[in-house]
């Protein structure tokens, strides 16, 4: 019997929305390089060992991530290496 998903907090939803925004931005990059961007996004989101209640760190990382996104959105950046 599957468990019902717990209601997501506003902060969790913000993180999910931001994840989506990052992938949408990566879709604009040259097709052969998109997987590089996808890998980068996944690793950036998952590398932090965070607790759900660690609000200060989560909010800090969100702010930092959004600044990073604006940098990587630049059309001059068409590939990324990890």
């Amino acid at each position: 019997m599957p468990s019902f998903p717990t209601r997501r907090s506003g902060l969790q939803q913000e993180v999910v929305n931001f994840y989506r925004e990052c992938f949408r931005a990566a879709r604009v990059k040259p097709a052969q390089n998109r997987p590089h961007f996808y890998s980068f996004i996944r690793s950036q989101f998952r590398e932090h060992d965070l607790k759900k209640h660690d609000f200060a760190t989560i909010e800090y990382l969100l702010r930092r991530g959004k600044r990073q996104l604006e940098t990587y959105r630049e059309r001059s950046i068409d590939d990324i290496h990890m």
Partner: protein
Amino acid sequence: MSHIATHQPLWSIARIALVIFALLYSASTSLSHSNIESRVLDILKSFNKVDPTKVSLNVYFLNDLGLDSLDMVEVVMAIKEEFSVEIPNKNADEIKSTV
């Protein structure tokens, strides 16, 4: 931020296929329900994190395939691209399983 208690539906591939079928029915007569189901199955199977042997119509994304909410963003985006449909983000966030 409102926290109204709502019943969140559990999604499966069968249900997603029905939604997509309904969305596309008027646009294309060559699209069959089982064709949609198999294409969604293929999308799931092609995910690195997913064990393809576990994927079936009634599998639950969260509980059976070990996918989390971030993975679900990618799954839904892949489905939207595959079928060129728009699933409103609100509904996309509710998609938690393939049933």
